[in-house]
């Protein structure tokens, strides 16, 4: 397929994955903070950090506003200048889909366009003001529809694998970032039962962000930092964990290497995956959970750069390696 189109496929799914994460976080967090009495600075601002928007937000809105929860929620959902706001990301996803309309199925295009048209209509903002949970739920429902169509109406060809690659890498990225930020802020001593309850709720909430609480409960009824982190990093059959995502990314990359003429130099996803599977939670906690997660985040960023240069920007040198096609 056309290299430029491959890039659009890759980015389309990165954007869809971001929308999913943000909407999910927003809806889970609202109900969570009602059950706790977290310090006000810990209620919403941490998510700004997860999104990498700390600097810009503080610059534009000032330090005092880091406790202005309404403003933060608005910034994350509606701010057109915030490159990772929901409205900005939905617009980017829709633009990408529009550019590759010729490749994706019409059903997929229509589903993405429907989300966009709804978001820019008055109804969506009115709903946001009246019933925020319902607002995010509609977004999540739309994304589920989009993913459903993607998995059921596309051949598992090049375009599909580039999409899956983008989706999985972005998902691993988001998981790592959220766990990283969320594990910075908790103190781990258990002095009284009350604090125990808070800790349990805290980790339960973290799992809910990935809809993983039910899957986790099947394995353990104790919610603590070690077990939850272990689940979210290593559990290789739950779709939101780091291991699962990297494994799937590897699979798609392998398929792409077979189809395209990219050489076998591109193996750093495998490398990162091996690093993880050869480790365990005890070692990671000793070395520092945050250190580990930072290295995962950086690793994924390097993988994405590599993909960009190898697949999306083919050099003219390729003319000598055309795999026997008529020249």
């Amino acid at each position: 397929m056309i290299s430029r189109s491959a890039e659009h496929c890759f980015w389309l799914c990165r954007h869809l994955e971001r929308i999913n994460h943000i909407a999910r976080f927003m809806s889970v967090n609202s109900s969570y903070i009602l059950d706790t009495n977290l310090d006000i600075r810990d209620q919403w601002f941490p998510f700004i950090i997860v999104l990498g928007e700390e600097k810009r937000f503080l610059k534009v809105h000032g330090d005092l506003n880091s406790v202005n929860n309404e403003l933060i929620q608005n910034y994350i959902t509606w701010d057109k200048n915030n490159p990772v706001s929901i409205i900005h990301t939905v617009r980017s996803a829709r633009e990408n889909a529009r550019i590759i309309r010729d490749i994706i199925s019409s059903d997929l295009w229509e589903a993405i366009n429907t989300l966009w048209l709804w978001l820019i209509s008055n109804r969506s903002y009115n709903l946001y003001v009246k019933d925020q949970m319902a607002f995010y739920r509609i977004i999540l429902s739309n994304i589920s529809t989009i993913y459903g169509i993607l998995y059921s109406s596309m051949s598992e060809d090049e375009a599909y694998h580039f999409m899956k690659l983008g989706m999985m890498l972005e998902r691993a990225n988001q998981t790592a970032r959220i766990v990283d930020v969320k594990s910075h802020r908790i103190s781990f001593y258990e002095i009284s039962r009350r604090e125990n309850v808070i800790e349990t709720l805290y980790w339960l909430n973290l799992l809910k962000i990935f809809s993983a609480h039910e899957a986790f409960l099947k394995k353990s009824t104790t919610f603590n930092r070690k077990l939850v982190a272990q689940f979210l990093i290593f559990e290789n059959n739950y779709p939101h964990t780091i291991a699962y995502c990297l494994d799937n990314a590897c699979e798609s990359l392998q398929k792409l290497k077979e189809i395209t003429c990219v050489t076998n130099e591109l193996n750093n996803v495998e490398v990162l995956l091996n690093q993880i599977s050869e480790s365990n939670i005890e070692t990671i906690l000793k070395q520092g959970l945050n250190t580990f997660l930072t290295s995962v985040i950086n690793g994924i960023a390097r993988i994405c750069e590599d993909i960009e240069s190898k697949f999306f920007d083919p050099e003219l040198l390729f003319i000598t390696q055309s795999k026997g096609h008529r020249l």
Partner: protein
Amino acid sequence: MGIFAQSQQLLHGYHPLQGVYDEVFADTEHFHPNIESVCKMLTRMSHNKFKNCQKIANTNFRRSGVTFTVYSDSEGTEKIFPFDLIPRIIHNQDWQKIDLGLKQRINALNMFLQDIYTDQRILKEKLIPEILVKKSPGYLSCLQGFVPNNGVFINIAGVDLVHDQNGEYLVLEDNLRTPSGVSYVLENRFIMKRLFPDIYSKAHVKPVDEYPIQLKNQLASLMIDKVDDPRVVVLTPGSYNSAYFEHCFLAKCMGCELVKGQDLFVNNDKVYLKTTQGPQRVDVIYRRIDDDFLDPDFFRKDSMLGVRGLMKAYLSGHVILANATGNGIADDKAIYPYVPKMINFYLNEEPIIKQIKTYHCADKQDLAYILSNMENLVIKESSGSGGYGMLVGSMATKEEISRFKALIQQCPEKYIAQPIIELSTCPTFDGTRFGPRRVDLRPFIVSGKQQWVLPGGLTRVALNEGSYIVNSSQGGGSKDTWVLD
């Protein structure tokens, strides 16, 4: 008044205009006899049903993004091309004449282009003033001497036709460079089939869905002698172009890749596509980019949309461009009056479809007539399009007429004039009631080794009451066109 009261429920109270041909009504009480049965079926529908169907159509277009972008609007907003559900109906007999007439016209125009870019016999015979050709911005002297494969310059043509007050079809103008609108034809037909399946099947309308396949086959046929499985691509300026939806739509329906200039490169005068599987040879390019922007090495240096070296590849016969470069001379409005002569000269035939009388401001006699008859004429720029830069004399104010007179006198060779044709009308819904609105017709003709005419085409309608301007950017909409089998 009997038939009127019952079966005409939908168009009850509709008044066709005096002295104007209406597409549905032969007079206030009767439908045109040759399309009567279909009209009866359509008008049996109730007002409410019609309004609901109209709503469904609009939702459908919005959801599937059948839109175009208007740039005069500072945001560059996407608008739906308004669609009216009452189709324009043409009987098969009438269509046969149009079909033959269009093929004849395009054939002659093609031979004209071959001639102009080789021996120029028609100029030597003094049938067309040489100066009109030499001074036309559409004539590209740098292409003199080159004829593309199989001699076909015009692969896709959109010829605008009007139905005059006497019920005769006349050619209004030719579009031989990058004619657009066919995607609306296909999308409109899709929605009509969905909303009125019963009426549609009983009416026996000629299908239009094979257009993209016919187009692809004809384009591929141009290289089939040289190459086993010619690769055809659609070249788009990109998603910011107002017709991007159409480029995508056609590429998809044709089963071709949609490419931008940056996806292609030229090596050894051959064109390649940058794919993830390495470079792939390209044989035919259906280009929706104007000549000027095609190749920064040959035309405009500042073009970011084109492909370096493309013209060299084209001129060495390794790639076909559809349409060929340099077609502008054939659809130049200053050349338009001479097309009947071309049909005589190249084909030894009389034109099957006539055209509108045209006066040249550059001709002294014509100019005198024009200046003293401005209120009865339409003045157009020779190289204008989109309905801009024109004056409809009967609707203009005194100031507008004076202003145009001055413009003409400053630059006479830039303008032509035509008598005001009473465009036919077709019943159109304005939200409350049905009224007569002016329509024109743009059929599409595809030429490769053979010619194929799309049955019907795009009927454009001027939605504003009293307006003659049907262009999408200025208050126009569209209707489906039904050619009965």
